[in-house]
């Protein structure tokens, strides 16, 4: 039937206020997706150091972006659909059956798909080079290829969006086929009932948020394996709570304000408050969504930027020397044990052969002990294999000889004295140390950076004493370090690593496995590249998702204004007739604006601040201590975001004012 495409094109044209922004948004998403897909297979990216990791991150991000794209497009399309139902209802009354309507909608969807795809791809191809340059700058790679078009990315975008648009089409058909024409015709102007304030739901929302905040703020960083799980458990209550807060809580607030006669019967508040009581219930979900999206953007941007800018300092503290070789003897019941003296001898022996400067080597004894303030009980847990609980600390013991050797000092200690360095920034606050209620050591605390390989454990303490042999029986393992500066080729690294490993296992008997020996060799350079490519990938994804979320937020805002404008048109007409001046109306709109604009942002900032506590813990685990940096980053990001949001709010609220006839 030739009529469908005509009707469809006509519908899109006459509803351009709804469709153009939608097409613009889907084009934007296609553009972003194209860029990510193109970069994930780009040779230039592959060629840069850590390119492989970067590409993996990008590859994952594509699916995350696609998922969000699906959500946004569904959500915004439901707005479009709501406004279209009336027109479709009219067609229905005029004699088109549901099948015909589906036909029209199929063509509409097809037109939207094709135009979004074309615009989006052009947009993606144009901006891809720019994005690539940015990414390479972050990942410290080199940019040399010219302008290219990625067939792979084009195909991927075409397929993903075909799927999304198909789902949208199915949803539209579902909506239309379940509505009867009279309902469809009326759907915009159902008689308004005043929303009831639901105390219970409002309180539940607040309670859910408080619960989640409490959960995050009371997290114990010692339980690092549970950290992410705990955070994830807090996310759902926060989202649910935010929705309840906006939907029920806001109605509740309006009701309370209405009870306050003095406040309510004031020219400035009268119309705004009663309007809001009605509005919030319906637009509450929209505001909550805006709030959550904003939170995501804020968290993502602030944390990735803060992490990225700390990589270098972490690398220095993680790698006091450029090349690091670490062997760890793990003592299990069936494994053969080695004494610390023996381990130390082997370590220094092999270290003597190292071709480099500033050679440092030592061996330390590890065990886990539970307690606080100087009193500890050795638990017998193995630091790497057993999960740590509250109060568990990792102790590493080093004989004074080794300490003096490494630091080049000649410190003397009495037999009941010990030097303690806390590897974590948690610090050691007692002036004595006692294990298992036996011998007491007087302690003094010192900072020594050369040993900072303990960033995996937060409460880890390095203890120097004259004689550590009495604790050998408790040790869960011994770690040997060899570190030195100097440019080693990959081959040299491999050879020296192999030698070291062989030496550490030197009393191996044929056919027997003498030790459980873990071994790793890394250079600061490789590690740094690894980190920067991961974080630059994350930042990149953060920026892409931010663009997407921002776009979605702005579009949502825009649709809300258009919708509410059409809804409120009559209302303001009446108010003007009753004697409200344009200025009064504008100030009413502004006070509504203030609340509806500010509330999601304020809630998002509150959520973000709490989440930053988690991010901070996570950062500390990664051995990053830039608390101030994190606070500064999130503050700057929040301010910038609020500004951009505000500008767009002003722009979209102009649409609103135009519609209500100001």
């Amino acid at each position, binding site marked *: 039937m030739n009529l469908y495409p005509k009707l469809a094109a006509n519908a899109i044209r006459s509803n351009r206020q709804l469709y153009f922004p939608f097409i613009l948004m889907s084009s934007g998403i296609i553009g972003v997706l194209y860029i990510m897909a193109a970069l994930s297979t780009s040779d230039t990216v592959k060629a840069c150091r850590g390119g492989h990791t970067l590409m993996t991150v990008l590859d994952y991000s594509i699916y995350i972006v696609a998922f969000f794209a699906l959500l946004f497009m569904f959500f915004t399309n439901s707005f479009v659909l709501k406004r279209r139902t009336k027109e479709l209802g009219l067609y229905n009354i005029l004699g088109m059956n549901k099948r015909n309507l589906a036909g029209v909608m199929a063509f509409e969807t097809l037109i939207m798909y094709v135009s979004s795809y074309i615009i989006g791809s052009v947009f993606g191809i144009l901006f891809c080079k720019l994005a690539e340059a940015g990414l390479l700058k972050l990942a410290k790679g080199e940019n040399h290829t010219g302008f290219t078009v990625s067939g792979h990315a084009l195909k991927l975008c075409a397929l993903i969006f075909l799927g999304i648009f198909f789902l949208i089409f199915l949803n539209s058909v579902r909506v239309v086929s379940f509505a009867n024409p009279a309902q469809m015709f009326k759907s915009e102007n159902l*008689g*308004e*009932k*005043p929303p009831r304030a639901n105390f219970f739901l409002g309180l539940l929302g607040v309670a859910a948020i408080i619960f989640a905040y409490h959960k995050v703020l009371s997290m114990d960083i010692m339980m690092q394996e549970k950290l992410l799980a705990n955070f994830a458990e807090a996310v759902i209550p926060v989202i649910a709570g935010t929705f309840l807060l906006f939907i029920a809580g806001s109605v509740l607030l309006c009701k309370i304000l209405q009870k306050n*006669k*003095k406040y*309510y*019967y*004031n*020219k400035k508040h*009268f119309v705004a408050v*009663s*309007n809001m*009581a*009605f509005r919030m219930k319906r637009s509450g979900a929209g505001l909550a969504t805006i709030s959550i999206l904003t939170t995501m953007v804020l968290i993502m941007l602030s944390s990735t930027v803060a992490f990225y800018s700390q990589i270098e300092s972490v690398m220095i503290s993680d790698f006091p020397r450029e090349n690091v070789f670490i062997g760890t003897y793990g003592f299990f019941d069936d494994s053969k044990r080695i004494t610390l003296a023996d381990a130390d001898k082997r370590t220094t022996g092999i270290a003597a052969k190292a071709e480099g400067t500033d050679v440092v080597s030592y061996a330390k004894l590890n065990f886990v002990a539970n307690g606080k303030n100087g009193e500890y009980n050795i638990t017998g847990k193995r630091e790497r294999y057993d999960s740590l609980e509250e109060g568990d600390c990792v102790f590493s013991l080093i004989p004074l000889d080794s300490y003096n050797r490494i630091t080049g000092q000649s410190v003397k200690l009495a037999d009941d004295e010990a030097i303690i360095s806390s590897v974590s920034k948690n610090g050691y606050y007692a002036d004595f140390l006692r294990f298992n209620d036996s011998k007491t050591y007087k302690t003094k605390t010192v900072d020594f950076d050369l040993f900072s390989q303990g960033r995996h454990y937060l409460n880890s303490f390095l203890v120097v004493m004259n004689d550590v042999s009495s604790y050998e029986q408790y040790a869960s393992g011994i770690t040997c370090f060899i570190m030195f500066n100097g440019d080693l080729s990959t081959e040299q690294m491999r050879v020296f690593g192999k030698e070291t490993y062989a030496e550490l296992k030197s009393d191996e008997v044929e056919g027997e496995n003498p030790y459980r020996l873990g071994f790793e060799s890394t250079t600061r350079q490789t590690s740094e590249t690894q980190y920067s490519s991961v974080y630059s990938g994350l930042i990149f994804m953060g920026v892409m998702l931010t663009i997407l979320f921002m776009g979605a937020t702005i579009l949502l805002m825009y649709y809300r204004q258009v919708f509410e404008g059409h809804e409120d048109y009559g*209302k303001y*007409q*009446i*108010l*003007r*007739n*009753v*004697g*409200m*001046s*344009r*200025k*009064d109306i504008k100030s009413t709109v502004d006070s509504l604006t203030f609340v509806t604009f500010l509330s999601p942002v304020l809630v998002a900032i509150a959520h973000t601040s709490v989440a930053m506590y988690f991010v901070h813990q996570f950062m500390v685990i990664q051995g990053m201590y830039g608390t101030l940096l994190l606070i500064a980053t999130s503050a700057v990001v929040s301010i910038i975001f609020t500004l951009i949001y505000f500008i767009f709010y002003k722009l979209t609220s102009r649409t609103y004012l135009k519609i209500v006839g100001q």
Partner: protein
Amino acid sequence: MSYLEVTNLKKIYTTRLSGNKTQALTNVCFTVEQGEFVAIMGESGSGKTTLLNLVAALDKSTEGSIILDGMDLSSIGEAQRATFRRDNLGFVFQEFNLLDTFTVEDNILLPLVLQGKKASDLHEEAVKAAACLGITDLLSKYPYEISGGQKQRAAVARALITHPKMILADEPTGALDSKSSDELLNQFVSINGGGQTILMVTHSVKAASRASRVLFIKDGTIFHQLYKGDASDTAFYQKISDTLTMLTTGGEK
């Protein structure tokens, strides 16, 4: 000088999309003295609502002038106009124009709140206004919960609550049964007795017969007018009725 002077008033509506023009008022001239109760009658589409809207400066005329209480409303700013309307005019709209988001009480109080009246006095005022119109029980209801006639009475209460100098009423009895419309008209006559000027559009001869003068509008001009003088309601009723008959037959010629 009269309270209201309308001279050579002309109104042409232009539809925004098609650019079609409709001439709603061709040439309207009349005056209203302070304290008069004037009814306006005419066929549907003859331009009555348009005229009221222009008098209240809710819309702009194409040509002609309107002087209200010695002031040319079109010459002052929008904000002042709104204030003038709020303080001096009470408008009863044909479509009631109640706000869905307010209870009946809050709808009635809207003009007072806009005037900045003290919150503590408001409830009492609302109860008083509602009592006159017999809608005291409905104060806490929302517009969607009440009938058309009840909405109309609420709209009248809203127009009367500020004790305006002039009341502009567009078919205030259109949705009322004969008993309620009699009560409403009694109310109008009584406030008119107190000095408030009333301009009322109506299709009902009975309602018009309570006024002191009736203007007949046809094809956008004042076609004829009748003074009540000392005549009784019944006598005036007869006169109006005759004029309407003449109007329709005369119109067909």
